[in-house]
């Protein structure tokens, strides 16, 4: 008679932590400690400050000019409590952005969001790949903007000051237990302060074991082409090609 079936053999069907085993009601020690480590990594991704200088150096190495701005949030603790402050530009940014020039097809903002880990790993390659696509498409690109203590909507005042037709915000997503390196992407046509999230389109889970940078930037380009043609973004954007991602819901 064959061995009785076990869910242990079916772990490949889900990332869920099935068939952990139990001692009484307790977890096996190794599983308990592994969970603790995953949580510690996720917390670290949230609380580690982004190193904007390192990001800018890496952008320079890719031949991409950049500037640095921040929101009105003072530190990580305030960032978590005051999403409203994370959406507004610190006054220092005015001079920085006026020097960067005005009137572009596209602005790209690299924002720390909730995972500096995701930004450190994935933002520069994603920005470089999108910049290359913009060049091939003949779109003018503003100097890249590296933003700290930033929420998605900080892209609105940045895009407005640069007079960009569209802004792409690459931002660290809230870390899950199994993945703390997911980058999110929000694309907004005709950015201006105060836009609701329903005016954006979103691509999420950009990371090594998730959506590849190649696939994600292809989607970004397709979104931008549709937005430039239809002159809008978000819930109203017609997505005739099935591959286009939907409007932001959060």
């Amino acid at each position, binding site marked *: 008679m064959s061995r009785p079936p*076990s869910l*242990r053999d*079916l772990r490949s*069907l889900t*990332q*869920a932590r099935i068939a952990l085993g*139990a001692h009484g*009601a307790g977890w096996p020690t190794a599983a308990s400690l592994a969970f603790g480590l995953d949580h510690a990594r996720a917390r670290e991704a949230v609380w580690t400050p982004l190193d904007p200088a390192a990001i800018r150096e890496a952008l320079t190495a890719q031949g991409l000019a950049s500037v640095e701005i921040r929101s009105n949030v003072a530190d990580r603790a305030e960032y978590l409590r005051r999403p409203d402050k994370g959406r507004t530009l610190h006054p220092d940014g005015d001079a920085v952005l006026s020097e960067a020039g005005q009137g572009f097809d596209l602005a790209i903002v690299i924002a720390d969001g909730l995972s500096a880990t995701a930004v450190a790993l994935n933002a520069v390659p994603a920005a470089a790949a999108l910049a290359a696509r913009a060049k091939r498409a003949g779109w003018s690109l503003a100097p890249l903007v590296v933003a700290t203590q930033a929420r998605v909507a900080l892209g609105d005042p940045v895009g407005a000051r640069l007079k960009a037709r569209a802004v792409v915000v690459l931002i660290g997503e809230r870390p899950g237990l199994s993945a703390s390196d997911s980058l999110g992407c929000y694309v907004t046509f005709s950015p201006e302060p105060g836009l609701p999230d329903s005016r954006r389109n979103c691509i999420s889970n950009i990371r090594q074991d998730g959506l590849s940078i190649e696939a994600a930037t292809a989607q970004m380009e397709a979104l931008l082409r549709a937005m430039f043609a239809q002159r809008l973004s978000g819930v109203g954007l017609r997505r005739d090609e099935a591959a286009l991602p939907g409007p932001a819901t959060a």
Partner: protein
Amino acid sequence: MAYATTIEGTCFTFPDLKSLMAKATPERSGDQLAGIAAEGPVERLAAQIALADLPLKTFLEQELIPSEEDEVSDLIARRHDAEAFAPVSSLTVGAFREWLLRTEADGPVLAALSPGLTPELVAAVSKICRLQDLVAIAAKRPVVTRFRSTIGLPGRLSTRNQPNHPTDSSEGILVSALDGLLMGSGDAVIGVNPATDSLPDYIRIVELLETLRLRLNVPTQHCCLGHVTVAIEAMGRGAPVDLVFQSVAGSQKANAGFGVDLTVLREAAQAGRALGRCPADGQFMYFETGQGSALSAEAHWGVDQQTMEARAYAVAREFDPLLVNTVVGFIGPEYLYDGKQIIRAGLEDHFCGKLLGLPMGVDVCYTNHADADGEDMDALLTLLCAAGVNFVITVPGADDVMLNYQSLSHHDAVFARQTLGRAPAPEFEAWLREVGVTDARGLLRGGAGDLPGAFAEASRLLPGKAA
């Protein structure tokens, strides 16, 4: 009308009832974000002292959100039962707290009182209750509901088995559901949050769960937690819908943000009843709520988030639900900052729901950007079991791989059974013994994923080695 308290010569004034309620609320980040919280602990106590002196009747005479502009307020006013309220009608909020704590206020007395209570009344008294008060009072108020299993009987704890999958893979959902069943979880519901909200996926998921239920003959219910309008369409096409689900909040505008109103919920309830799957005297509606959702939708009217949450229970109460749970730690630190705030909010929500007569459960959970961890969840689960919570949600290894947050593990339900003596619903308890998941004493046999012989029918649904 303004309210005032004088403490050692300093007079604290509160311009209206909603600011008094907000300032009397124990500290939480959401009210601070909204700019309505007390400046500090002394002002908070001044507000609590003024609130304790307020006659309960004040809340029936003054609406925090006008009925003319909000259908939830209108519902609350229309459904208030003055006769049921009579035993406490002359009390202040502070005297009402003491009345609730007395041994004379037992289960039947509290059950008779429920139709006389409004969300604002229970929210007000909760603000001057310690955690122990919230536990002690709620523990006296069992609320029992029934479909295929009987949920909420005193001394028992049910669980929602939540087998979510990032892409709604049928096989992924199935192995996760089986993992939960092998750990004895799922007597409240086997409920999937779909990653997509399309009608074909909704129908595929409920059909999958229905097949699993029938092959294993599990005495429980299943649910795909898609939008209620999708559920209505699926029911129209004859899909096997056990529970009709919707997220709800405490104002008409916040519910509009969820894409629902009372009319569409009534339509859904009628469609669900017409399916005839649930016993005529049973329940089949399922609602989720959570503090902060109204503020998040900019639909809070300057009312504190805990009162807005209690108002969501008036919406749920209208539909005689089988299950209601607050997803207490899901919303994030801008609303509930840390473990302390999440623990208090979970107990408040359970207390308010129970006093209003709801079959209240809690998703004991947290996100990685909140200052909370598994130990806070250990504390909240233990407190909720003492308070007699109807059900909690469990997932494999406490990690929800679709919604990216941490809920309880199936192991935590085993802990509640073995250490706190909370058995599952009687029908499910008998089934677990019958199929060999538990032994004659009700103790778990395995836990490492080995499928007992009785699961052979279900394992044929699976690919590969186990087929």
